[in-house]
């Protein structure tokens, strides 16, 4: 299988800038990087999609997660271009999903009982509400944790053959393979992009109280014009020296937060 070299849509400099931005959690950089490599991710997903019980969209999402993980690890000083490096993590992420969802599972007695509870709760929910329950609702009904519900449901997911009839009851000869949507379709891209969960940008400033944040951001021009400590103090009704003390306290707080917990 080829790693499906992406079209050269990005120059080396553009690619580096996007990787650095994505590594820093910049949502715009993440999105642009993903858009640039989505065709290549789709080509890898196509190989896994055939004959396994995993949806294409799920594979694409795992692939995107793999790409963003690669961006967090990729050293832009390497001679290796980004995609050959990232393809390893994209493929690994997809393999993980496939292994998780389609592995042959020998369930313990406890797991079998858990599954029976979930099935009963689902039937009851369908009877009462006429709709499929969510994992959270199943968790509440069974007393299992949401993670347990998710894990147990994954073990129950049936494998689907690429050649199996799509609607076996009506005598149709149309197979699953016949209706696979072209993975390079723009609509698919948008579906995946819409569901990317960009990790939250880690912003140290969130750990400061409001006054500390105002002083630090204003003094160093973070998202606003730069001000002297005298100007900041005047705005807050404080002396410049007091503003300086607040800044020193804020930086000390951040330093401590990063150094803790201390384990002797």
């Amino acid at each position, binding site marked *: 299988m080829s790693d499906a070299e992406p079209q050269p849509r990005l120059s080396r400099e553009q690619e580096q800038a996007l990787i650095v931005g994505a590594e820093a959690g*910049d949502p715009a950089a993440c999105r642009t990087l993903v858009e640039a490599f989505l065709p290549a991710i789709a080509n890898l997903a196509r190989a896994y999609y055939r004959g396994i019980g995993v949806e294409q969209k799920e594979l694409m999402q795992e692939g995107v997660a793999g790409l963003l993980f690669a961006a967090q*690890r990729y050293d832009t*000083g390497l001679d290796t271009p980004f995609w*050959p490096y990232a393809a390893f993590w994209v493929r690994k992420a997809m393999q993980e999903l496939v292994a998780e969802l389609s592995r042959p599972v020998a369930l313990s007695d406890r797991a079998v009982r858990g599954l029976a509870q979930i099935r009963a709760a689902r039937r009851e929910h369908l009877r009462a509400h006429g709709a499929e329950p969510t994992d959270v609702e199943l968790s509440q009904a069974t007393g299992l944790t949401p993670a347990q519900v998710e894990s147990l449901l994954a073990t129950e997911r049936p494998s689907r053959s690429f050649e199996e009839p799509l609607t076996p009851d009506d005598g149709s000869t149309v197979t699953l393979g016949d209706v696979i949507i072209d993975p390079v379709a723009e609509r698919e891209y948008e579906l995946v992009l819409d569901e990317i969960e960009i990790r939250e940008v880690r912003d140290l400033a969130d750990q400061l109280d409001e006054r500390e944040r105002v002083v630090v951001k204003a003094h160093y021009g973070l998202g606003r014009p730069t001000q002297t400590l005298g100007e900041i103090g005047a705005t807050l009704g404080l002396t410049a020296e007091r503003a300086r003390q607040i800044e020193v306290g804020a930086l000390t707080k951040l330093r401590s937060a990063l*150094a803790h*917990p201390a384990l002797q």
Partner: protein
Amino acid sequence: MSAEATAMRHSALVYESRDEYVDRAVAFLREGLDAGEGAVVGNTRSGLAAVREALGPDAARVTFIDVGAAYTRPARTFAAYHKVYAEEFKKAASVRVISDVQYGPEPAEWDMWMGYEALMNHAFAHLPTWAMCSYNANGLPDPLLETVWRTHPEVGTGTTWTKSDHFEEPTQLLRRITPLPEPLPGLRSISSGRGPEALRENLARELKADGVTEAKTLDMLIAVTEIATNAEAHGGGVKDVRLGRANGRFVCEIVDRGNGFDDPTAGYLPPRTGIGRGLWVARQLTWRIDFFRLPQGFTARIWL
């Protein structure tokens, strides 16, 4: 060479199959649980699912870590485990950890993670823990499997534990694999100002002009403050500050007037008595920091 006697036991488990891994991991964790120890397992999601299933009800007493999120850079991986240990030691007097290191496809990166394994011998040496690193013999290239013996005092294969005759003193290994930093002629000097506050002001202007995000600017300001404070305290003061772009990253070099230090573990060991927090903090906030000597002075090269 043998490892120094430490509170920590650092071992490698080389396994041939998923089933063998699960059997060994479950036995290792259960033995710890039975002795009242904390138990942690780090693996990929499917690996965790297999261990969880095999543990049955005991899984509720084990902490599971998705290594896909924890292994981005060694400094951040140490920080992640540092937090895990802090939580575990609230519940138990000693802790067992079995974890799969995540190696990528790039040989140039393998050295970095081999360095991580070497550093592990020092990073948590003071803690009563048994850290077992698991390696898939059928999934990793031979050169990587060979490094297992260099970075772990003992290695388990099959049912036997073997003391490694190839264990390399960690700082020696780290010096051997750390490449000499290349010159970055594109960097330009800026005024360091008078004291850390003026340095931060000058640096913030440059970062803003370069388009660095707010969050990363604050990261860099704090990291540079730590390095500059070190330079003032131990290096005779800041002599030069250079900055610019290299390999797509913002780089800042702090050059001091002292002789510097030759410690490849600097900034990787969690802060504790006798080990400062400055370089640890700086490494958490940045992509990489290189320390090296130049004719101009001892240099800390900070990559954002």
